[in-house]
């Protein structure tokens, strides 16, 4: 418990130091201006969202293997942290997109897949809050987590893995792995499927 408090204190101090680095030490970027500083939040929360989801998958599998309650609790906690990070990543990304692309939202592959990811884990949290027998619910949650992480993997495949591509990602730094997904056409397909025409 004492070690936990010390770690928390150290984390807080380091976070404060990072704020100083972001706003005082780092110079204002020339072309994008002060908005660029949002990347100091956007990127870390996106990474931590993936780290949390990965941890939740591992602990879910460990629950299935060992049936020790701590793994179940850990996976649920990891998903909650990951959801906070994913939400923050979407919000900060949207603010940046408004400045840079002039729009709050676009059906870019990376944006869309992150949103789908958000929905997957929101579904998990809904499942988690259902009044079910605790053992069965924990197993079901672990199964959902392991399926969800396999879908996650597909979303973030590196280039040249045979992942289909028909559309380029607008995201900065996407040149190396422009997978050109047809996600933009997904809403159009849904609309045309409903109206019976294309």
């Amino acid at each position, binding site marked *: 418990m004492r070690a936990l408090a010390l770690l928390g204190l150290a984390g807080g101090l380091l976070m404060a130091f990072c704020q100083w680095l972001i706003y005082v030490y780092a110079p204002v970027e020339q072309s994008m201006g002060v908005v660029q500083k949002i990347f100091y939040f956007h990127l870390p929360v996106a990474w931590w969202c993936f780290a949390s989801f990965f941890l939740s998958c591992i602990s879910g599998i460990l629950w299935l293997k060992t049936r020790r309650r701590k793994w179940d609790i850990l996976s649920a906690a990891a998903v909650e942290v990951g959801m906070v990070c994913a939400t923050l990543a979407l919000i900060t990304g949207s603010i940046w997109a408004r400045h840079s692309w002039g729009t709050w939202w676009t059906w870019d592959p990376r944006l869309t897949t992150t949103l789908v990811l958000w929905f997957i884990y929101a*579904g998990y949290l809904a499942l988690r809050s259902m009044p079910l027998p605790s053992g069965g619910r924990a197993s079901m949650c672990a199964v959902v987590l392991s399926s969800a992480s396999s879908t996650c993997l597909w979303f973030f495949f590196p280039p040249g893995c045979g992942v289909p591509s028909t559309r380029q990602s607008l995201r900065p730094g996407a040149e190396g792995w422009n997978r050109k997904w047809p996600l933009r056409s997904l809403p159009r397909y849904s609309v045309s499927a409903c109206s019976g025409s294309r």
Partner: protein
Amino acid sequence: MFLGQSAGEEPVPALIGLLLTDVGMAASGSLLGALSVGRAGRESLLSIVLFPLMIPLLLAGIQLGATGFNPEPMPDGPQDWIGLAAAFDAVFLAAGLALFPFVYSGED
């Protein structure tokens, strides 16, 4: 033909896509179908959890199905999408093999 659609040049990728999408939907659906077993009201939960998970497979199915009706062939060829659908099937069939005992253990 129905709604005045014409068939494409290559029906084989579309048929393979149909088969793979079918298998993938059955595999993922029956794995997560345990969610809706028992009490009423869980069916809506199944769709909330299942639909986002199936999006990669549905995208592949849509793309491959479209080649069956589009007279112009796909610019990059259908093999990547077939690979994606096959990979999804493989993952969820393997997950089903490994996880079925946990899902349907009758603990409820």
